[in-house]
């Protein structure tokens, strides 16, 4: 069995875990991160992309709001290219009555969140589809973030600072020492999901940053951490119906945000307590509710084309709490298990929100330093991740580059403007177990046709690439061995940059690994990739198939059944680590199911 020795072991490859690994590595700790799937596969990759200004919490939870505005300012500096400066509106619709807007404005002033009321005419000029019956509009510095890219960029920064990130590595157990009452966590036994190989990782300190899965990890240490998984359903509209983040100016509740992110606009979200963070289903009433609530800010939105729906699960935690998940606090929680459970060498960081991931990491590492008896200051707030020289993301970014470089014939995913070179670069430099991993890297299959055309193309390109590789790698080649070599993500999403380095690793000015060649192409079971991705896309389509998207689906069916006959390809029995996950697509038991009665004041992120 392979053995690894490190100072800090981070469990979980979402924004928090990756942020913790970055912070730890910058403070000079030997750091290893394990994630059982791809980075951001859990909650981080399933959120709407809102970078909070703090306005959403300013009345109910001013401290949280203060954290948000502070982090909002920092992230614009450290993760510039992952953020689109959309700005945000807090709008008072005819449904929103009372003195909340005045309280809101005062609270923003008190907390120090820039907030200016603008005329309805000015708001309508900027967002013509906004409800014209809106009575007041406040402008705040909300923004939109690409949580895939931001996490990849953070991970790259962590690597450059010396961290090792092992994805598709599942924790099987924690290594414990000492007797009950004086227990110490000294590492973890993990398994490489791609080849079944087990690895023993010894660490001075284990940080549990596994979000909604934190309770399961803590159990390995004999510690009870009661996570309340709160499911949030989001739906993406087919195009950018709005270009500014829209929030209802009222106490946070279901379906009251619309976030323009990349080429879509996302309506979010619900909040339902669930038992299993892996097995989420989207109820028709939840989709209906999103559209109904969306109508209040943008009348007509429910008649527009919906691209897809998905659910994420919040890692909500409240000590000793047993009520509704919507009432659980959104504040970050750091559990010091030495103090709480007499288990040392083990911290759990949970709660919080994407916007404050850096602060969560800082808080965690401060505690870790204290427990390890080392004083090292946090530097993440002033250390930009690679790639910020590209400036803020803007909607036209890809189109502009494709046009400038005349890359139109190179487009593989035409909807999201993914070129062949982007795909090839990503697969050579990012671990790829499923096409869904590539989707997170370059947005493959995320557009209107939902993989209708590009699934076939991508699978064939990957297959051809692997066949053409001079020496086909042994099957045992783990994605993480590839990961450990030169890894360049700063320009992962740039068609122009990738076109200039065909077939080679993108030249990196910041790469710490010199002399490393690009990683070997893994050999793929192309038919499995194809089936997995079709099913993965299908899962997010079934809740919203009507109108134009249903027509699109029928064309996709014609292509994959009638034209390609993919369900009769050889190798039907093969499965990937994610096949079961994609297949879990339960149909609601009955319709219509009424949503639970709304409570008076509910809380959301």
């Amino acid at each position: 069995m392979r053995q690894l020795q490190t100072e800090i072991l981070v469990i979980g490859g979402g924004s928090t875990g990756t942020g913790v690994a970055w912070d730890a590595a910058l403070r000079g700790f030997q750091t290893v991160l394990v994630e059982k799937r791809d980075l951001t596969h859990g909650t981080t990759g399933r959120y709407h992309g809102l970078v909070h200004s703090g306005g959403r919490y300013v009345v109910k939870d001013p401290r949280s709001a203060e954290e948000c505005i502070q982090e909002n300012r920092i992230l614009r500096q450290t993760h510039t290219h992952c953020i689109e400066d959309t700005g945000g509106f807090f709008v008072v619709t005819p449904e929103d009555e009372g003195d909340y807007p005045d309280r809101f404005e005062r609270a923003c002033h008190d907390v120090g969140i820039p907030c200016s009321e603008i005329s309805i005419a000015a708001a309508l000029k900027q967002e013509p589809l906004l409800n014209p019956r809106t009575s007041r509009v406040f402008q705040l510095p909300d923004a939109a973030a690409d949580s895939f890219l931001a996490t990849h960029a953070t991970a790259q920064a962590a690597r450059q600072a010396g961290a090792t990130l092992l994805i598709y590595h599942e924790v099987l157990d924690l290594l414990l020492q000492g007797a009950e009452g004086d227990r110490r966590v000294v590492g973890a036994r993990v398994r490489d999901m791609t080849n079944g190989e087990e690895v023993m990782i010894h660490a001075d300190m284990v940080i549990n940053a596994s979000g909604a899965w934190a309770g399961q990890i803590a159990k390995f240490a004999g510690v009870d951490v009661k996570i309340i998984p709160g499911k949030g359903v989001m739906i993406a509209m087919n195009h950018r119906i709005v270009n500014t983040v829209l929030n209802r100016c009222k106490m946070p509740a279901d379906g009251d945000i619309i976030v323009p992110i990349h080429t879509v606009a996302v309506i979010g979200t619900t909040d339902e307590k669930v038992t299993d963070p892996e097995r989420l289903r989207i109820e028709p009433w939840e989709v209906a509710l999103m559209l109904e609530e969306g109508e209040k800010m943008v009348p007509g939105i429910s008649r527009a084309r919906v691209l897809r729906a998905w659910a994420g699960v919040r890692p909500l935690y409240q000590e000793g709490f047993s009520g509704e998940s919507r009432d659980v606090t959104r504040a970050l929680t750091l559990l010091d298990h030495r103090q709480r459970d007499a288990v040392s060498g083990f911290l759990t960081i949970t709660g919080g929100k994407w916007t404050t991931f850096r602060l969560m990491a800082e808080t965690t590492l401060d505690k870790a330093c204290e427990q390890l008896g080392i004083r090292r200051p946090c530097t993440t707030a002033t250390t930009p991740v690679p790639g910020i020289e590209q400036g803020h993301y803007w909607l036209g970014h890809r189109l502009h580059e494709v046009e400038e470089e005349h890359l139109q014939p190179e487009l593989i995913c035409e909807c999201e403007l993914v070129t062949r070179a982007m795909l090839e670069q990503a697969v050579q430099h990012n671990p790829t177990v499923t096409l869904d991993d590539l989707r997170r890297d370059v947005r493959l299959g995320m557009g209107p046709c939902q993989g209708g055309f590009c699934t076939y193309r991508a699978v064939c390109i990957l297959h051809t690439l692997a066949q053409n590789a001079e020496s086909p790698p042994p099957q045992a080649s783990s994605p993480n061995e590839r990961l450990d070599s030169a890894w360049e993500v700063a320009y992962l999403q740039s068609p122009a940059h990738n076109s200039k380095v065909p077939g080679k690793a993108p030249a990196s000015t910041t790469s710490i690994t010199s002399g490393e060649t690009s990683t070997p192409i893994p050999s793929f079971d192309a038919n499995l990739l194809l089936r997995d991705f079709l099913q993965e896309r299908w899962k997010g389509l079934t809740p919203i198939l009507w109108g134009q998207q249903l027509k699109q689906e029928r064309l996709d069916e014609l292509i994959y059944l009638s034209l390609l006959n993919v369900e009769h390809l050889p190798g039907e029995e093969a499965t990937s680590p994610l096949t079961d996950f994609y297949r879990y697509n339960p149909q609601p038991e009955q319709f219509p199911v009424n949503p639970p009665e709304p409570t008076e004041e509910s809380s959301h992120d």
Partner: protein
Amino acid sequence: MIDLLVIGAGLTGLTAAIRAAQAGLTVRVISQGVGSQLWGAGTIDLLGYLPDHTPVQMPLVAREQLPPEHPLRQVDAATIDKALASVQDWLAAEGFAYVGADQGANLWLPSAVGAKRPTYIAPSTQAAARLDDPAPLHIVGFDRLRDFYPTLLADNLRRQGHDARAHMLPLDLITQRHDANNVHLAQEFEEPARFDALVGSLRYVIKPGERIAFPAILGLAKHAQLVADLQSAIGAPIAEIPTLPPSVPGFRLHNALSHQLEKAGGRVETNMKPLEFGTEKSKSEKDNITWVATATSARPRRHYAHAYLLATGGFLGGGFNTDHTGRSWETVFNLSLTLPRHRDQWFRPEFLDPAGHALFQGGVQVNHAWQPVDAQGKLVYGNLWAAGNLLAHADAIRSRSHEALAIVTAAAAVEAILVQHQPAISAGSATSSRT
């Protein structure tokens, strides 16, 4: 006033219009866009898989195992044969040979990903790649062509025991263009001397006995001549494998049938979006349709006809639509549909579930004379007929029946129309149709 207004220019609409025009009716086809053939492979599929997923060898025999309400069960085998044979004749007249396997068996052809796909009648160039032929397939692709990849195709064929190898050539051999649209490439391929370089690079790598399979981009109208020339220049049988849409074989099929329709005196008018229709009480106390109005740049334009054939297809063709409440409607005459009412009953958890999705079994119900009926089984309009993939009880994409279902039901519906509307009836009526 014309005899027959056909709504929809897919295979259903076009073949129905040709038949009606050949029988002497004055016919106009209106459609919202160009027909749906460009989405498909350009083959005529009759029945590839039964609902339990059994592969079908003899479609006309296996048809008996379809549910009794399936549209293909409403016609006899002779009618099916005759309907398909006449389409073969029209295509032959346009220079496109369409062939089937022997004795009514399915042809099994390689798909662009290397699966064996069942079809009943195929362009002879596609049939040249039939997989019951032991001759090895030498699959040629072009490097920048984004809709065709020989490597996976050949690998999958080999995994299934077929002798196949892949060969990638530079696209520059056949074009100076950077653009990679299949139809444009096919058009360019028709220019003189376009394949000289291609022949040069293939002649010496071919092994004796091999068949050469290309992506389906070998010309448009001049396809047959090009293939014959290529075949004699290379000295090996030439086959085509259909790519992703837009499909070149579909484009050829569409043009050939449109031309047949023109020759028969009918015409297609595109970009005609139906908006509304008028009705009147007929002698038989049953409502008749008096006109269908389509959108123009200003006021709706009314099309008057004695008989109307609805051939708008299903969800893909635009025959039906749905919204987020689970409401569904037929888009031209608001006919009742046999769809599950609630959205949660529409789909199965797995995309590739062999049983298919319940929604796509739904559609328009017709009586024995191919006339739409309501939920109670009562005739809706005295002069309205329906055919093709809008008919209920068949998921033709799942069962691989798409094209034959269109052709056969169109033929049957036209037969039924002719019973009521003999050409003589319209002899005195003014016509706005040109021949």
